């Protein structure tokens, strides 16, 4: 097999060769017959006009016969040669067909195509790219399903146990407590489902076009929505000076920022949360800083490691020092992580306001559009 050669070149070569052989054989036969007839004619020149006519007919007949006969015999042979040659040339294509046909839906390993002809190689490459894409999507899906079932199990267990406690309670205040806890659990499960849908949409969003947009309106919108909860929690929300133009998706960035603000609001017991927007070279820096409980510097590495690994859900609210609050869905950081991934950004954890609490810094590529 001619490794990596062009299929077209091989077919043209084989066909030309076959036609040339038949043509040469025909020419040789015709030449011999003509030579023989002409010699006979010269040795015994015709004497009469009728004899002359006879000889001429014989000569042209012989030439025509020798032109036709090899062709008639060789044509089926030529066809046979072509069938074999074409079949031989198309073998890589057949192998590819067999490989694709025999695949189970979830076998997405790349097709081996090192010796494929030049015409098929791009097809194999595209197919392998497609397989890799589907594989990524499937893995995301699996990860999501596993995360979802894992994340839902604990609130479901809590709901069931609280309901059973309420049923078995003989004390009215205990029953009331268990019932109100069930309501809290339902709110939490609702929030969790909303967060999971956001994550699922994020996974489906891959490759969506990013637009040039300003960060400030996004921060203003998020803070406006969180204002009520912040007042209830006795926490001050501050938006610092500054703005930056980034390449992004407004809805996704909003969802990311809301998760960061919610996390600071609900899990750190902060009195102040400050959002800052700045530019550092070709990166826009979005900072959410609080003065709450924070995450000890020694344990930030652990958070970042889990963040980079990007395996299962990495809830900021199960991070050391942040009690698993009843309103935390545990998917917050997963959402933040996916949004940052989609924007080609990075995340950094620092000390928060006045060295207390936590500051989450998100760096995003700035937009060069004006």
């Amino acid at each position, binding site marked *: 097999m001619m490794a990596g050669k062009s299929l077209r070149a091989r077919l043209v070569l084989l066909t030309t060769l076959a036609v040339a052989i038949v043509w040469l054989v025909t020419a040789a036969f015709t030449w011999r017959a003509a030579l023989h007839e002409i010699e006979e004619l010269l040795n015994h020149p015709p004497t009469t006009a009728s004899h002359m006519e006879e000889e001429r007919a014989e000569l042209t007949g012989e030439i025509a016969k020798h032109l036709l006969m090899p062709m008639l015999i060789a044509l089926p042979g030529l066809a046979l040669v072509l069938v074999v040659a074409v079949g031989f040339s198309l073998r890589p294509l057949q192998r590819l067909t067999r490989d694709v046909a025999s695949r189970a839906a979830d076998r997405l390993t790349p097709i081996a195509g090192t010796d494929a002809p030049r015409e098929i190689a791009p097809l194999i490459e595209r197919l392998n790219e497609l397989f890799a894409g589907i594989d990524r999507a499937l893995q995301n899906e699996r990860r999501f399903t596993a995360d979802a079932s*894992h*994340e839902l199990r604990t609130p479901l267990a809590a709901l069931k*146990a609280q309901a*059973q406690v309420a049923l078995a309670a003989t004390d009215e205040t205990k029953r009331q407590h*268990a019932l109100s806890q069930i309501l809290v659990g339902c709110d939490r499960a609702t929030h969790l489902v909303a967060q999971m849908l956001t994550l699922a949409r994020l996974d489906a969003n891959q490759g969506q076009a990013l637009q040039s947009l300003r960060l400030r309106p996004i921060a203003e919108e998020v803070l406006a929505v969180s204002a009520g909860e912040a007042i209830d929690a006795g926490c001050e929300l501050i938006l610092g000076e500054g703005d930056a133009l980034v390449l992004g998706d407004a809805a996704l960035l909003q969802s990311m920022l809301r998760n960061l603000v919610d996390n600071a609001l609900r899990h750190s017991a902060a009195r102040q949360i400050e959002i800052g927007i700045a530019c550092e070279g070709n990166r826009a820096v979005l900072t959410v800083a609080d003065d709450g409980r924070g995450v000890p510097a020694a344990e930030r590495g652990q958070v970042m490691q889990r963040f980079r690994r990007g395996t299962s859900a990495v809830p900021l609210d*199960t991070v050391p020092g942040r*009690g698993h609050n*009843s309103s935390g869905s545990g998917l917050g950081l997963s959402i933040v992580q996916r949004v940052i991934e989609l924007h080609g950004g990075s995340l950094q954890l620092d000390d928060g306001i006045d060295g207390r609490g936590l500051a989450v810094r998100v760096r995003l590529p700035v937009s060069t559009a004006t």
Partner: protein
Amino acid sequence: MRILLVEDDALLGDALEAGLKQAGHAVDWVRDGIRADTALATEDYAAVVLDLGLPRKDGIEVLRGLRAKKRSLPVLILTARDTVDDRIKGLDAGADDYLVKPFDLGELNARLRALLRRAGGQPAPVLTAAGLSLDPATRRVLAQGQEVDLSAKEYALLHALMQHPGRALSRAQLEQHLYAWGEEIGSNAVEVYIHHLRRKLGADAIRTLRGIGYVVAKEAP
């Protein structure tokens, strides 16, 4: 029985604490692995209900640490991951039993009873001693075949004594069994409950060993 509950989820922990108390246990609830270690090092528990996904220190690590110290108290693990691998990992790390979330509170209590029974070397589900029988599943106590109505604390105290008939338990040990953290312990609470129990079960159901403690006699062979 005094149970250590290790669960980081506020809602589930609250429910489990209430559910275990309903089953007559004294419950200490801690929310992370480090606090679980401290509690296990300082207090005497009959069993541990341990969630695996914990902040600060993983449940599996807590369990390994406990077994490395040759502590044999029964441990029931709660896990949100239901893959066989996770269950094998938990059991191999030294767990006695496991439940996958979401679980039934009744099943949790039944499994705990079974673990406590085995830990106490009692093959039969119903504990028996001289003239007494106690069924941890139904919490029914019979004295000379007659059903006796006991308060939660009286029941817990009798349960502790009947777990090991013939072995004396000191007042301090009994207090450990009866009270979780933060519960007010009356200075002579144990004496008062013993007094009530003797009134209900018969004067010689529980004997006092002066300077040692209290004991329920083994069933006569």
